[in-house]
């Protein structure tokens, strides 16, 4: 069966403000937010896009939803090329692919009641009016806000962060999409509330068979919600495998450092120095070769000359490193 989402050779470059010397030399430096990714997602998979700031995970998410156009490469959704989608076909895609935002406090129009906010996608998609009520109720029930009458007439500023994010999720689900991208969905919520949203998301997957991509910098969260983890670093994928595997048996040096760096809620935890080299300045991609080589404690000559390809080293578990 063809994967639901197939991205090949995906690249996205952003122009960077030029320094005067560069203007004189007619150079156009770019920031390579996404620098060549091949990502295949099967229907029903939950994939976590994990990485620190600047790794390109958010940009990848937006590319997958056609919110921005790739500089190079292609994306196919349900075996249709995303780049050439227009008109009714594009409209259909928008119904099938939805987004949950990072900031629940801003994701809803402050002048819309919750009812209007939930109804908006239905109106846009041209769903017949008779179906509206049912669909909205089902969506609200999925996010555990079943007492809709308590919420329909309220405005966003009257709800708490946790409730808002559930409404945002409900709005995304009201069209029964096939594909969901969630960008740091709980990072702006209080910790005691996060568990609730995460559980809702797990349930939604289980009951709807939704294909989902979770973008996060929080490893523990990704492990909890996603069956598969893709680790990104400076625009490239460095590791890709089942979440439990990636956490317990990380292959790539960056992943190893990441796993060790995450604090756990137990006093007895490793406090060993991280296997990663100094350089605290903002990581900028070195040209050519492996992007991680400046910080990698195991880098050797080949890492500078040749970019390591993603290779499968265990069933379903791939990594891009010359050491392996």
């Amino acid at each position, binding site marked *: 069966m063809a994967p639901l989402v197939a991205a090949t050779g995906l690249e996205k470059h952003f122009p960077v403000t030029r320094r005067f010397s560069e203007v004189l030399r007619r150079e156009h430096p770019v920031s390579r937010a996404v620098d060549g990714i091949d990502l295949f997602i099967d229907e029903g998979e939950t994939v976590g896009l994990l990485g620190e700031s600047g790794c390109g995970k958010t940009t990848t998410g937006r590319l997958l939803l056609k919110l921005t156009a790739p500089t190079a490469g292609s994306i196919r959704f349900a075996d249709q090329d995303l780049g050439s989608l227009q008109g009714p076909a594009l409209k259909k895609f928008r119904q099938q692919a939805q987004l949950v935002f990072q900031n629940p406090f801003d994701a809803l129009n402050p002048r819309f009641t919750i009812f209007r906010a939930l109804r908006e996608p239905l109106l846009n998609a041209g769903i017949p009016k008779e179906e509206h009520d049912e669909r909205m109720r089902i969506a609200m029930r999925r996010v555990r806000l079943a007492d809709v009458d308590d919420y329909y007439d309220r405005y966003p*500023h009257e709800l708490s962060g946790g*409730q808002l994010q559930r409404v945002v999720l409900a709005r*995304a689900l009201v069209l029964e999409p096939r594909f969901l991208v969630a960008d740091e969905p709980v990072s702006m919520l209080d910790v005691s509330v996060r568990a609730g949203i995460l559980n809702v998301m797990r349930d939604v997957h289980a009951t709807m068979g939704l294909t989902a991509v979770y973008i996060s910098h929080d490893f523990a969260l990704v492990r909890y919600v996603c069956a598969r983890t893709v680790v990104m670093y400076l625009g490239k994928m460095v590791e890709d495998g089942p979440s439990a595997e990636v956490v317990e048996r990380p292959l790539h040096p960056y992943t190893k450092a990441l796993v060790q760096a995450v604090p756990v809620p137990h006093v007895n935890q490793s406090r060993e120095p991280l296997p990663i080299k100094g350089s605290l300045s903002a990581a900028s991609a070195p040209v050519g070769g492996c992007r991680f080589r400046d910080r990698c404690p195991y880098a050797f000559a080949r890492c500078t000359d040749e970019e390591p390809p993603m290779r499968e080293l265990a069933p379903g578990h791939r990594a891009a490193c010359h050491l392996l």
Partner: protein
Amino acid sequence: MPATASPAPARGGRKAKLAAIGRAFDLVRRDPFATAGILIYLVFLIIAIFADQLATHDPNQILYRPNGRVASNNPPFGAHILGTTNLGRDIYSQLIFGARSALIVGISAALAVVLVGTLVGLVAGFFRGFIDMALMRVADIALGIPFLPFVIVLSSFLEPSMWNVVMGMGLVVWPSTARVIRSQVLTLRERTFVEAARVTGSSQFRILFVHIAPNVLPLSFVYGSIAIGWAILTEASISFLGFGATDSVSWGSMLQNAYVSQALSRGWYHWFVPPGICIILVVVAGFFVSRGFEEVLFPRLRD
């Protein structure tokens, strides 16, 4: 299933709206200037609507004394509350009907400015690119045109009428509103809920008019309030300079007549002071209202 209750007070759409009105009144109470402004507007509005009932005479009618002579320059507080003009017209009635002209001009002009300015601001800010550039250049040109002389020129070409002021404002005064609306739109279009609207399939126009426009309307309202005062002032200036409408009476025309009849040197204060005060009151009221309502109309997100 546990219902996560929120500690917020208001429930229900209608109740929420009532609560918003309640908050509006609270703020009004706290800002006495805005309250004063609203009251002044209300008073003049009532006067303008009920002018026919409130005036004692026809403002253009020349009145005569019992002895058959023209009732010119009657002092105030006599048979005529504010006295009469040098041609025997009742000043009080003129003042009343002047309010009507003033408000008609003021509100129409404000509407014109707000409509044009908001539309331009919305379109320029949202679509950006060439449209934005073109519209902003037009705005720059309009901004460069001196308003009063422009209206004078208009009045010379067209029939003298208060609608010249309205048209003038609609053509030349909208840029400041447009600029502010545009920057508001520039901010709004980056907001998450706008992107959400895009993701859930809203068309460009829907996003612009259903999502963004309602969030800039409070600002339009603010500019509208200022525009009312501005329009009335301009109309008064035009009439004073002699370019105003000849058929209807306005505060400006009263001032012009008084000036031409040398009312100042003759000490006929009852003629020119009342219209002057009225003009000042309305302009100041506009300013206070616009300041006060800026706060009320912007909804606040939960802290």
